[in-house]
C-alpha cells in the first residue's frame, strides 16, 4: 500500500493493494493518510504474509521544504507514531523492518552519491528477542543489497539468483536458547546458503562476461571451496569447537564481501579519460564539419586534405609501433582515436594558418542567429531529463517554430508579397491580384499544411513511462489486436488507402516531371513493380490482421503466405534498387518533327542552338551536333517541317532517381511497422514534400556560382527526422523497441542467427533516420525543380505555336537540375557541404547526448533516460551517416550515368 510506483513495477504481484498517486511532490499527505486508513485494519485482518507500506510524505517533504522545517518535524513525529502503533500491534512471529531507500542532502534532495544521500536508517524490531546481546552503540553499516538475502531467508524463500548481498548474520542467531554453539551454527548455515547462491551466480556470470578480474575470481573461488569444505566437516562432527565455527563464518563473510567488492569495482566503473577524450573528439569533429562546410565552396580547398590524412596514418603507425614495442595491449579504440587526432591537428593547424591571413574570424560562424538559437536550445535540452522525456512533444514544437520562422522571414524580406504592395499601401489593390500574390498565400498555405501534418503525425505517439497522465495512441498497436470486425475493416481500408495514396502521389510526381514515360527498366519498375509491392503489402496485412479467423483448411496457406509475402516485397524493393543503380538515367530521347515545345511539359534542351553565350556549355553543343545529324537524316527521308530533338525529363533526372529510391526503401520499412503506421509514412512523404517546397521558395538559384543549402533547411530536415522517429511510435528507451519487427517474414523465429533479426529491428527503429538521411540531397536539388514552375507560368500565356516558334531564342528555358551539371565543380562542393552540414547538426545532438550522459553519470535517471537516449542517438547517427553516404553516392552514380549517357549519344551520332 502507498506509493503507486509499486503497481507499475510489479503489476499483479499483490493479493491486496491500496495505491495512491505519488507523483505530486507538493502533496505531502495523500499517500500517508491513505496508508494509515488501511494499514491497521489490514494488519488486524491477518490475511497477509508480507505487508509493505511505502510512506512518501517524508520524501516529498524533504524535496519541498528541506530537512530543517517545521513540516518535516510534523511528518517525522507522525512517522514516529506510526512505528509506535505498529510495535504495539506486532505479534510474536512478526518482524518489523523500517528502511529508507535513500537519505537526503541538506537541501532535502537526493539522487547523487554523497554520504548524506546514500545512507539511510535501518530499524528491525520484533517482540521476540532478535539479537543475542545488546546491539552496539555504533552499529555497523549494512549495504542495502543485504536486505534481499536476509529477508528471503527469514521468509523461508530461496535467495534470488542475481543477488550479491550478504545476509545479516545477527538476525539468524537464535537468542532464546542461549547456547552459543547452535546460534553460531544457524548463522553459519544461513551464510553458507547465501555463499552457495553467490558462488553459483559468480560462476554463471564469469562464464558469460569476461570483465571480472581472473586472479581475484580464482582466489575467491578457492576461499569459497575451503570455507564450504570446513562447513561440511563441521556438520559431520557436531561436537567441533565453537572457534572453528567462527572461522567458517568469517571465511564465508570474507568471500561474500570479496565478491561484492570485485563486482562493484568492475561494474560501477567509469573511464573518465575515455569519456573526456571521446567528447573532445566529437566536438572537434563537429567543429571540423562546420569549418569544412564553410570552405567547401572556396577554391583551393582540396590540397588541404592530403597532408592531414598522411599525418593521421603516420601517427597511427607510430602509436601502434610504440604500443607494440612496449608490450601493451593494442586497443583499437585508442588507435582509432589517435588516427583521428593525428589527422585533425595538422588540418586545424593548416586551417588556422590559412585563415588568419585571408578572412575575418567572424565568418567562422556562419549559422544565422535564429537557427543558431534553435540548435542551442536543442543542445541544451539534452541535459534535462524532463526535456529528454518530453522530446516527442518538444521536437514538433521546435519544428513548427522553425517553419513559422521561415514563413515570417520570407515575409520580412518581402519575398511573399510584391514590392509595390509594400511601398504604396493603398493604391495597388488591383495590381496585387496577380501571380506573386498567389505565391504569398502559397507559402503560407505550405506552412499551415506542414503544421497540420506535424500535428496529425503527433497523434501517433507513444508515451514515455515517466509521464503518468499521458496516454499512448491506441493506433500504434497492430490491427490483429483489435476486436470488432467493422472498425478493423475500416482501419484496414484506411491503411490500404494510405498505401495507394503514397503510390499515387509518387507516380503523380514522376508524371508531373514526366519521368514516367521513359522506357528505362527502372521506370518500368516504378510503373509495374510498385503496385505489385502495394498489393503484396496489403495482402500481407490482411493475412496478419485476420490470421486467427482463417478457416482451418487454409491455415497452411495463410502461414506460407505470411512468410512469402514480406520476403517478396523486400525482394522486389531490392531488385528495384538494383535496377535503379544499374540504369539510373530516366530520360526519354525522341527525335521528332514539329513543335515539341508546346506538347511537352519540360524540354530542357530542345530546338536549334541558342545564343552565343550558351555555346560555352557542353550540352547545347551536343544538341547542335545531334540536330545536324538528324537534319541530314531527315533530308534523306525527305520529310518536312522544323526539326527538333527533345530529351525529356533531363531536368529532374537526379531527383527522380532520389524519389524512386526513397519510395523503394520506404515500402519494406513500412512492412516492418504496424499497419496503421502507414498513415504516418504517408504524412512523412507529404510533409517532407511540403517542407522542400517551402524551403525552395526561400532559396535563390545562383546560376553559375556556388550552390549552397542554407542552415535552416538542414536543421529543419534533421528536426523532421527526429519528429518522425517519435511519430512512428518509437521512444528512446529499450522497452519501447518494436520487437515484433523481427518476425515479419519469419513467423517461426530465426533459429540461432542474430544479425538478421537485429537488422530488421534496427531498420524498424531507425527508419526515419535512414529515409531522411538518404533523402538529404533533395534539399540541394529541389530549388532547381521548383524553377520549372515559374518558368512554365511564364510560358503559358505565349500559347500558340506561331509565337512559340518565333521567340524560342528569347525564352529562357527551365534548365533545372542541368544547371548543376553545368558547373560540376560547384555541384560536388555543394554536395560535400550539404553532407557536412547535416552531419554537423546531427553531431551537435550526439555530442550533447554524450556530454549529458557523462556529466550526469551519477544522476538518478542516467540508466533510465540519458544512457538509452545516448545509445539510440548514437545508433541513429551511425544509420544517418550511412544513409547520407548512400544518398550522396546515389546522386554521384546518377551523375556518372548522365555523363556516360551523353557520351553514348555523341558516339551514336558520330557513327
Amino acid at each position, binding site marked *: 500500500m502507498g506509493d503507486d510506483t509499486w503497481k507499475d513495477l510489479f503489476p499483479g504481484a499483490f493479493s491486496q493493494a491500496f495505491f495512491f498517486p505519488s*507523483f*505530486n511532490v*507538493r502533496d505531502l499527505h495523500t499517500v500517508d493518510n491513505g496508508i494509515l486508513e488501511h494499514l491497521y485494519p489490514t494488519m488486524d485482518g491477518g490475511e497477509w504474509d508480507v505487508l509493505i507500506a511505502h510512506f512518501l510524505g517524508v520524501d516529498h517533504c524533504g524535496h519541498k521544504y528541506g530537512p530543517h522545517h517545521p513540516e518535516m518535524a510534523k511528518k517525522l513525529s507522525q512517522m514516529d507514531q506510526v512505528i509506535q502503533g505498529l510495535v504495539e500491534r506486532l505479534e510474536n512471529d512478526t518482524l518489523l523492518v523500517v528502511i529508507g531507500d535513500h537519505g537526503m542532502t541538506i537541501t532535502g534532495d537526493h539522487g547523487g552519491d554523497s554520504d548524506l544521500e546514500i545512507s539511510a536508517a535501518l530499524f528491525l524490531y520484533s517482540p521476540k528477542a532478535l539479537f543475542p546481546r545488546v546491539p552496539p552503540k555504533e552499529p555497523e553499516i549494512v549495504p542495502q543489497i543485504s536486505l534481499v538475502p536476509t529477508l528471503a531467508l527469514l521468509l523461508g524463500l530461496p535467495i534470488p539468483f542475481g543477488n550479491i548481498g550478504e545476509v545479516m548474520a545477527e538476525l539468524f542467531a537464535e537468542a532464546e536458547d542461549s547456547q552459543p554453539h547452535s546460534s553460531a551454527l544457524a548463522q553459519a548455515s544461513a551464510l553458507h546458503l547465501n555463499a552457495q547462491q553467490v558462488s553459483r551466480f559468480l560462476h554463471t556470470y564469469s562464464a558469460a562476461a569476461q570483465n571480472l578480474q581472473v586472479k581475484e575470481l580464482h582466489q575467491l573461488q578457492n576461499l569459497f571451496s575451503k570455507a564450504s569444505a570446513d562447513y561440511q566437516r563441521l556438520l559431520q562432527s557436531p561436537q567441533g569447537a565453537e572457534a572453528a565455527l567462527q572461522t567458517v563464518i568469517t571465511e564465508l563473510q570474507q568471500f561474500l564481501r570479496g565478491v561484492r567488492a570485485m563486482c562493484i569495482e568492475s561494474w560501477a566503473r567509469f573511464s573518465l579519460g575515455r569519456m573526456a577524450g571521446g567528447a573532445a573528439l566529437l566536438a572537434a569533429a563537429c567543429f571540423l564539419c562546420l569549418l569544412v562546410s564553410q570552405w567547401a565552396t572556396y577554391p583551393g580547398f582540396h590540397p588541404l586534405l592530403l597532408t592531414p590524412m598522411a599525418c593521421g596514418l603516420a601517427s597511427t603507425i607510430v602509436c601502434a609501433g610504440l604500443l607494440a614495442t612496449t608490450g601493451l595491449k593494442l586497443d583499437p579504440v585508442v588507435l582509432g582515436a589517435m588516427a583521428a587526432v593525428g589527422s585533425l591537428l595538422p588540418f586545424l593547424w593548416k586551417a588556422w594558418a590559412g585563415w588568419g591571413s585571408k578572412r575575418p574570424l567572424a565568418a567562422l560562424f556562419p549559422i544565422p542567429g535564429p537557427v543558431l538559437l534553435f540548435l542551442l536550445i536543442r543542445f541544451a535540452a539534452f541535459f*534535462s531529463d*524532463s*526535456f529528454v*522525456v*518530453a522530446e516527442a*512533444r*518538444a521536437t*514538433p*514544437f521546435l519544428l*513548427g*517554430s522553425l517553419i513559422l520562422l521561415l514563413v515570417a522571414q520570407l*515575409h*520580412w*524580406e*518581402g519575398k511573399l*508579397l510584391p514590392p509595390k*504592395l*509594400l511601398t504604396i*499601401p*493603398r493604391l495597388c489593390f488591383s495590381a496585387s491580384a496577380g501571380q506573386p500574390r498567389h505565391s504569398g498565400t502559397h507559402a503560407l498555405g505550405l506552412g*499551415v499544411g506542414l*503544421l*497540420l501534418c*506535424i*500535428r496529425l503525425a*503527433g497523434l501517433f505517439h507513444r508515451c514515455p513511462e515517466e*509521464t503518468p*497522465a499521458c496516454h499512448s495512441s491506441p493506433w500504434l498497436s497492430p490491427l490483429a489486436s483489435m476486436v470488432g470486425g467493422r472498425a478493423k475493416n475500416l482501419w484496414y481500408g484506411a491503411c490500404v488507402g494510405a498505401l495507394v495514396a503514397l503510390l499515387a502521389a509518387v507516380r503523380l510526381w514522376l508524371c508531373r516531371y514526366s519521368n514516367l514515360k521513359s522506357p528505362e527498366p527502372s521506370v518500368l519498375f516504378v510503373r509495374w513493380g510498385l503496385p505489385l509491392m502495394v498489393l503484396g503489402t496489403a495482402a500481407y496485412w490482411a493475412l496478419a490482421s485476420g490470421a486467427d479467423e482463417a478457416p482451418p483448411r487454409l491455415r497452411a496457406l495463410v502461414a506460407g503466405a505470411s512468410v512469402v509475402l514480406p520476403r517478396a516485397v523486400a525482394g522486389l524493393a531490392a531488385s528495384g534498387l538494383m535496377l535503379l543503380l544499374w540504369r539510373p538515367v530516366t530520360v526519354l530521347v525522341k527525335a521528332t518533327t514539329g513543335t515539341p515545345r508546346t506538347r511537352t511539359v519540360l524540354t530542357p534542351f530542345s530546338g536549334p542552338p541558342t545564343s552565343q553565350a550558351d555555346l560555352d556549355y557542353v550540352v547545347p553543343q551536343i544538341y547542335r551536333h545531334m540536330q545536324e545529324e538528324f537534319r541530314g537524316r531527315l533530308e534523306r527521308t525527305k520529310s518536312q517541317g522544323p526539326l527538333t530533338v527533345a530529351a525529356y525529363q533531363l531536368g529532374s533526372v537526379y531527383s527522380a532517381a532520389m524519389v524512386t529510391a526513397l519510395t523503394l526503401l520506404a515500402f519494406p520499412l513500412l512492412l516492418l511497422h504496424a499497419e496503421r503506421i502507414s498513415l504516418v509514412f504517408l504524412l512523412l512523404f507529404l510533409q517532407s514534400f511540403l517542407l522542400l517546397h517551402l524551403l525552395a521558395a526561400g532559396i535563390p538559384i545562383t546560376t553559375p556560382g556556388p550552390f549552397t543549402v542554407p542552415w535552416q533547411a538542414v536543421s529543419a530536415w534533421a528536426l523532421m527526422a527526429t519528429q518522425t522517429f517519435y511519430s512512428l511510435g518509437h521512444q528512446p528507451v529499450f522497452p519501447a523497441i518494436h520487437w515484433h519487427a523481427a518476425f515479419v517474414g519469419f513467423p517461426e523465429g530465426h533459429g540461432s542467427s542474430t544479425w538478421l533479426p537485429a537488422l530488421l529491428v534496427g531498420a524498424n527503429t531507425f527508419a526515419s533516420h535512414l529515409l531522411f538521411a538518404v533523402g538529404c540531397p533533395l534539399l540541394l536539388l529541389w530549388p532547381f525543380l521548383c524553377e520549372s514552375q515559374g518558368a512554365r507560368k511564364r510560358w503559358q500565356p505565349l500559347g500558340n505555336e506561331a509565337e512559340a516558334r518565333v521567340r524560342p531564342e528569347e525564352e529562357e528555358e527551365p534548365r533545372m537540375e542541368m544547371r548543376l551539371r553545368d558547373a560540376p565543380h560547384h555541384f560536388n562542393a555543394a554536395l560535400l557541404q550539404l553532407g557536412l552540414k547535416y552531419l554537423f547538426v546531427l553531431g551537435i545532438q550526439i555530442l550533447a547526448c554524450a556530454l549529458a550522459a557523462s556529466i550526469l553519470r551519477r544522476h538518478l535517471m542516467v540508466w533510465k533516460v540519458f544512457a538509452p537516449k545516448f545509445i539510440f542517438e548514437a545508433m541513429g547517427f551511425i544509420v544517418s551517416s550511412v544513409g547520407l553516404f548512400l544518398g550522396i553516392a546515389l546522386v554521384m552514380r546518377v551523375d556518372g550515368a548522365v555523363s556516360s549517357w551523353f557520351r553514348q549519344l555523341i558516339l551514336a551520332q558520330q557513327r
Partner: protein
Amino acid sequence: MKDTDIKRLLYTHLLCIFSIILSICIPSFFLENFSILETHLTWLCICSVFVTAVNLVLYLIVKPNASSKRSSISYKVTRFLKCCIYFLMSCFFFHVIFVLYGAPLIELVLETFLFAVILSTFTTVPCLCLLGPNIKAWLRVFSRNGVTSIWENSLQITTISSFIGTWLGAFPIPLDWERPWQMAIERKKMCRSFCVPGMVLGTVTQ
C-alpha cells in the same frame, strides 16, 4: 514633434503596464478568492478587458495617426464592426495555431481560447487601434523597411516581443508536472514579462 511623440509613447506604454498591474490588484478587492494562480481564467478575462480598454482610451486621446477624411457615423460604425470581426478572427486564428502547435484539441479548450484572446489583446488590439482594419498596412508594418513612424516602430517591437514571449513561455511546460492548466499561466506570465521590457525597449530606442 519627435520629442513630444516620444513622450506620448512613453506615457502610453507606462499606462499599459500600469493597467496590467491594476488588473492583478483591483479584482482582489471585489472578488473573493482571487489570485492569479488559482482563478487564472477570471484573471485572464479581466486582464484582457483592462488592456483593451486602456488601449482604446489612449487611442481616442492621443490619436497617433492622422484622422481620416470621412467622418460620417455609418463609416465609423462599419469601421468599428470591422475591428470587432478582425479581433474575433485573430482570436480564432491564434487558437488554431495553438492547437497546431500541440495544445489539446478538446480538453482545456477554454484555457486555450482565453490564451488566444489575451494574445490577441496584446497584438491585434494595438494594431487595430493604430492601423485600423487594414491588413495591407499590417503586412507593411511587419516587414523590413516597412515602418514609417515611431508609433509603428514601437508597435512592431511590442508585437514581435509578445510573440517571442509567448513562444518562450512554452519552454517550462515539460518541466512542470503539477497541473495542466499551468501551461496557460506560464505562457501568460512569460508573455507579459517579455512584453513589458519590449515596450520599454521600444521607447528607449527611439
